[in-house]
């Protein structure tokens, strides 16, 4: 029992306010088909999954909206410092320090400032924000609110991809409920401050997950990236300073404010605070979204948490952080899953999408499917990406179909290397990086396709892709 004094407010609560020593919750009280659990999990972002927290009253029972009240009594700079010290880094893929990003927003601005939640989750292999929106939508709202208090914004937008219609509806209800209670809108929690949160729906575009394209999309335009500088923190939505964070990043923020930067930082490894929602998918016995501490060993994740490779197959490769990350071979998976360790191993932690590939899969085909995706999603704005993805895709198609020439292998790598760092936005890099890794690490498999030989992995009678 405790009385929490927050600013001018006194909140009397019937339950211990916050006991973050108990981060390992037991099984979910409500059985959910899409949820999995493992004893190694440390539940922070997912602690309310399966607890019915999309309901506002239930969310309040589970420490809901306490963090934002605490933040209201804090100086903006101390909020930013807390987030900086927590070691929270962007969960969308780039892994940039969230507190640092917030600190780039100018204190004084003639134009309104904004916080924008990126819920355009579309990196192949990633399905974590979906669970946050479904099970804990208010934590995202609260995260946006705290971000807005930290940078001095009066409006926040939560952008959810068009395919996630049911989640947009959950979010719309959550926002409506929070308005009805007076948690958002005018004079929030009697603080004299106004803060509006709005929802926004997309209509199908991977590219829009890139921060500047996201702003274009929200402004009702084609999702084409903007040239930087100026960065969004200075010139963003409608020309105003804008903070853009991934949904998982923002969902972590209330926990940091309540649990403290030290607690959060200690959950992970140095400079990699907290946990991550890892989406295990592909050829793995127990696929699912698991919340594990930053720095968790990938090999253990695959064999202990994920239950290993099914059907008596062997591991061939792992894409550790979504389709844009260079693959790791079976020999390279003994790596700590934090931003710096995975970077040292030559890949990226990315968006937490761990795609497992067994030895029955053809890497050339895998590379082709990856490139087909990037070619489809390239916005066509800049030439290296538009032409590069198309050229590599066509080469890989011919190659996989048995029309490959020896020089194609080097040419694919040459094309990809010439896209790297030469595009307006990271989509070009995202297409190039995995391709280079496939060619470098699995050159032998490419060579097995030469001289008109059929793909050694193709099932007899398998048809080609329905459309190219």
């Amino acid at each position, binding site marked *: 029992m405790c009385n929490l004094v927050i600013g001018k407010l006194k909140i009397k609560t019937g339950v211990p306010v916050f006991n973050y020593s108990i981060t390992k919750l037991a099984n979910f009280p409500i059985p959910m088909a*899409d949820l999995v659990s493992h004893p190694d999990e440390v539940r922070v972002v997912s602690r309310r999954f399966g607890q019915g927290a999309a309901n506002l009253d239930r969310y309040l029972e589970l420490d809901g909206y306490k963090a934002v009240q605490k933040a209201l009594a804090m100086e903006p700079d101390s909020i930013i410092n807390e987030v900086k010290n927590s070691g929270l880094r962007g969960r969308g893929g780039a892994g940039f320090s969230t507190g640092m990003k917030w600190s780039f927003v100018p204190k004084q601005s003639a134009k*309104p400032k904004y916080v924008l939640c990126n819920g355009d*989750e*579309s990196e*192949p*292999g*990633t*399905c974590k*924000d*979906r669970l946050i929106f479904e099970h804990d939508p208010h934590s995202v709202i609260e995260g946006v609110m705290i971000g807005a208090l930290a940078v001095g914004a009066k409006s926040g937008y939560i952008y959810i*991809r*068009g*395919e*996630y*219609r*049911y989640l947009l509806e959950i979010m719309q209800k959550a926002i409506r409920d929070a308005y009805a209670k007076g948690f958002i809108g005018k004079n929030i929690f009697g603080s004299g401050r106004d803060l509006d949160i*709005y929802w*926004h*729906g*997309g*209509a*199908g*575009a*991977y590219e829009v997950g890139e921060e500047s394209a996201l702003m274009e*999309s*929200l*402004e*009702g*335009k*084609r*999702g084409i990236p903007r040239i930087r500088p100026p960065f969004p923190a200075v010139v963003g939505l*409608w020309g105003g300073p804008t903070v853009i964070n991934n949904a998982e990043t923002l969902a972590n923020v209330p926990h940091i404010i309540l649990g403290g930067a030290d607690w959060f930082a200690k959950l992970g490894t140095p400079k990699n605070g907290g946990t991550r929602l890892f*989406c*295990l*998918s*592909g*050829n793995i016995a127990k*696929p699912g*979204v698991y919340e594990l501490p930053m720095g968790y060993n990938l090999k253990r994740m695959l064999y202990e948490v994920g239950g290993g490779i099914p059907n008596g197959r062997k591991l061939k490769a792992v*894409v550790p952080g979504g*389709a844009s990350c260079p693959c790791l071979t079976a020999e390279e998976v003994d790596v700590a899953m934090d931003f710096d360790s995975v970077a040292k191993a030559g890949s990226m932690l990315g968006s937490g*999408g761990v*795609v*497992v*590939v*067994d030895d029955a*899969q053809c890497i050339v*085909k*895998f590379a082709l*499917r*990856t490139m087909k*995706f990037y070619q*489809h*999603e390239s*916005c066509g704005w800049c030439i290296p990406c538009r032409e590069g993805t198309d050229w590599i895709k066509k080469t890989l198609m011919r190659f996989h179909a048995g029309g490959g020439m020896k020089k194609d292998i080097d040419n694919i790598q040459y094309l990809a290397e010439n896209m790297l760092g030469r595009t307006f936005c990271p989509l070009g890099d995202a297409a190039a990086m995995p391709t280079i890794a496939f060619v470098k690490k699995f050159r032998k498999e490419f060579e097995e396709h030469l001289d008109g030989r059929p793909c050694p992995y193709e099932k007899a009678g*398998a*048809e080609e*892709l*329905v*459309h190219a």
Partner: protein
Amino acid sequence: MKFSDEFEARFAEMVPHYPTKRSALVPTLLYAQDEVGFLSDEVIAEIASRLDLTELEVRNVISYYSMLTTKPRGKFNVQVCTNISCMVRGGEDILHHCAKKLGIGHKQTTPDGLFTLEEVECIGACSWAPAAQVNYDFHENLTTEKMDRILDEYKKKATQ
């Protein structure tokens, strides 16, 4: 051009959320498409005039987003994901199975106007692959048998 009351309520709620009118364009187009089935010339003209845009500006946006279409689709849009996580778990088999069963290919519609088939990029169901969406409903951990049952159920729904 008349939309439902629900659409009008949502549109009226949405527009004041933004400092510029056109910001409401993308979600408005999708909600309009949900009602009409596709973005017809009439819908485009109506939305353009409501948001103070030219029809060309609206078409320019439509052509960018993969969910928006100016061509009529079937009542049920069957969108099968074949991206990497789904591919390694048999997503292509699901797609080919649907193509065979429905007798149509990518972005084609059955003669009875019930089904459109589409091969789509990642729909965010990677841990529950292979997966497909029929309109907005997710169907996950698919097998060809399960897909059969799903398609049959939609067909039954349409004839009831």
